[in-house]
């Protein structure tokens, strides 16, 4: 397989629900390996639906989705991606360590291998010392970091994130944005990230896919040419504001009410 094989390849995809609602139509998108792609759009534009179709959690009505050169269904069975939801979705009865190790247990890793990997991940998401805590003893931001560690545990090539920081306060969110970029860099994975925050999308991504609603389609794609690595200063650069404006205008042109 060639190195330029796309991480995600979506061709003429559409999705209609039984209710008759067309959620997505005419979606074509190619995500290159190591890219950080954000999907942004008004609510009801189908961005979460698109993410779930990539993850084979729901089926498209038409079109094809390939992940790592394989049909999405095959890719899910092969554990080619990890997923993070808006809620951390941690299992209450498991400690932080055991939550992170859940996918590894399902993959039948040995106890020693699991323990070693969990230690690495705790370090990566900076939660050393909390391994024996239960989820309800952690703050929302910490819970979400556990959820990210769990998604990365089996080292998937692709990370799907559905508004992972949407429920967090602004300060925690900005800090976790920086941490996510560090993790992205360290893990070498490709990220598809759903958000409704324009600055967040611009700050994190290599490309921002702007979607419009009813039916959901791609209104345009913005290349984010801000230098890597991004830092706290990135948000203060003129180019950052230009790109934010560009995304905002695309959203407005797509019929979204932008405030």
């Amino acid at each position, binding site marked *: 397989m060639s190195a330029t094989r796309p991480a995600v390849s979506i061709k003429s995809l559409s999705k209609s629900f039984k209710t008759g609602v067309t959620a997505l139509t005419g979606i074509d998108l190619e995500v290159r390996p190591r890219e950080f792609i954000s999907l942004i759009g008004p609510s009801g534009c189908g961005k979460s639906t698109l993410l*779930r179709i990539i*993850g084979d*959690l729901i089926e498209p009505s038409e079109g094809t989705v390939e992940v790592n050169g394989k049909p999405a269904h095959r890719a*899910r*069975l092969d*554990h080619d*991606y*990890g*997923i993070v*939801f808006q*809620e951390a*979705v941690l*299992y*209450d*009865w*498991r400690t932080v360590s055991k939550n992170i190790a*859940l*996918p590894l*247990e*399902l*993959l039948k890793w040995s106890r020693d291998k699991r323990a070693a990997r969990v230690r690495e991940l705790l370090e990566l998401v*900076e939660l050393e010392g*909390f391994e024996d*805590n*239960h*989820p*309800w*003893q*952690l*703050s929302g*931001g*910490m819970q979400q970091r556990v959820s990210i560690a769990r998604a990365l545990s089996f080292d998937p090539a692709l990370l799907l994130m559905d508004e992972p920081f949407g429920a967090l306060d602004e300060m925690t969110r900005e*800090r976790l944005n920086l941490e996510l970029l560090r993790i992205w860099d360290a893990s070498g994975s490709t990220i598809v990230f759903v958000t409704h925050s324009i600055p967040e999308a611009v700050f994190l991504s290599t490309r921002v896919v702007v979607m419009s609603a009813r039916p959901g389609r791609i209104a345009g794609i913005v290349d984010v040419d801000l230098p890597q690595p991004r830092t706290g200063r990135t948000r203060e650069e003129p180019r950052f504001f230009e790109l934010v404006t560009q995304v905002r205008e695309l959203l407005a042109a797509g019929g979204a009410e932008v405030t």
Partner: protein
Amino acid sequence: MAAIAIEQPRRTRGADTARGAKRVALVLVGLAVFWGLWEAYRWIGERAGVTWPFTVDDTNMPHIHEMLRVLTKPLQPGGPTLLHYEWHWALFTGKEALVGFLLGGAIGFALAILLAHSRILRRGLLPYIVISQTVPILAIAPMVVLGLGTKGVEPWIAVSVIAAYLTFFPVAMNTLRGLLSPDPRSLELMRSYAASRNDVLWKLRLPASLPFVFSALKISATASVIGAIIGETPASIQDGLGGAIVNFNQYYSTAPTRLWATNIVCAALGLAFFAAVLIAERLILRRAPENIA
């Protein structure tokens, strides 16, 4: 990295002990208040000549200390004390109830797992499971005792089966609810890992159901004791608390305190079962405090 403090301080052993002591004290205060109310009603009722809903006298409302004192007196002249008998009856009924509790719990649990996996079975079987509980246990008991008796099963085991009949239902219903309780996101997460049905059962559904299972077991714990006591009646078993109740009922007008004392022993046995489940729950369940029923 920004250090974030744990939002909830860990409970210390000392705080746990203090909390336990406070609880015990509250229970004792509750008992004292009940005792006081009982005796006060008696005292006023006797002097005011209350006849509704019943005449207040030594037969209908014996002194609580008399109920306890009769336990220390011999049942027959020169024989062992009533407490000695009560202890053995309680052990016998306790054995029936325990076997019934375990049997009913296992059946209820297995039934719930079966039902959780098939919508068709849920639709088809649930109505019958519900109907099973609308049939009076007093009507079922003789059939069970006689039916199993002809198969050579010992009567006390037949009583356990009756106790199990009362036990399995709450366990089946609550466990089923617990198994179906995981939210769509938790299930989606499992699907993203391509987890098998078995994995979903063992790693998600069963652990998620445990708080429900324990709240059912608490109901079943006392229900199995009641089931065993009732089951002894048609089986004409004389070795347990049910037999004793039937017996003392016949002599109520002459020795009411014996029946009351037996009632207290029955309550204590039920409480012991309940406490055992509570302790098991404390040891096993590790949940957010708000998720423990």
